[in-house]
């Protein structure tokens, strides 16, 4: 079964802090995604990648960097965290084209910026 794991599951930082969220998938999928989920906004795409070293800009990229170091690992970086980045962050993976377009989501990381 597809597996996406995220760490940490919870994180509290202060304004201006440096945060790295980690995601690992063992699905052998090419595509990985970072979303944020906020009440009233649903899930919004921050960045995505179709392979190691590749990065594509999503719909809400401001204040976020991302890096795909291997096929399995995708990181989201907040270098100067702000309270507006307090949110629930999800990582997902999928394997189009040819494979299924289904996105498999991790359990989420709850980030609080004080």
């Amino acid at each position, binding site marked *: 079964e597809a597996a*996406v794991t995220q760490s940490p599951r919870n994180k509290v930082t202060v304004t201006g802090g440096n945060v790295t969220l980690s995601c690992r998938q063992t699905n052998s999928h*090419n*595509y990985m*995604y970072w*979303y944020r989920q906020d009440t*009233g*906004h*649903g*899930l*919004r*795409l921050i960045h*995505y990648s*179709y392979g190691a070293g590749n990065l*594509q800009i*999503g*719909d809400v990229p401001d204040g976020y960097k991302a890096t795909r170091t291997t096929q399995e690992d995708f990181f989201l970086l907040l270098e100067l965290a702000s309270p507006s980045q307090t949110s629930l962050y*999800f990582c*997902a993976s*999928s394997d*189009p*084209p040819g494979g299924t*377009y*289904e*996105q*498999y*989501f*991790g*359990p*989420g990381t709850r980030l609080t910026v004080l």
Partner: protein
Amino acid sequence: QQQVRQSPQSLTVWEGETAILNCSYEDSTFNYFPWYQQFPGEGPALLISIRSVSDKKEDGRFTIFFNKREKKLSLHITDSQPGDSATYFCAASEETNSAGNKLTFGIGTRVLVRP
């Protein structure tokens, strides 16, 4: 501007009733419409999906009705069960052969099924 709209934001039904969740979209290039189900404390999971070449997709108690002309779709949950209590997200994308599946999500409908 929200490209995928969902209504209602929350819905309460009794066990055994049919829950109807609505979704509409703006972008006429969208041709793939998945619905994701999310339980508290978990990530979303694909429930059922439809492509724009079809007007109906059924999977057990879950059915999608799709109206391409009006850019609307709905998810019907028949014989609702308390275990169906969750948030349901409508999403949309343009399937291509060269790019990833960049989904646009609605804000979700929170469904509560009372026993």
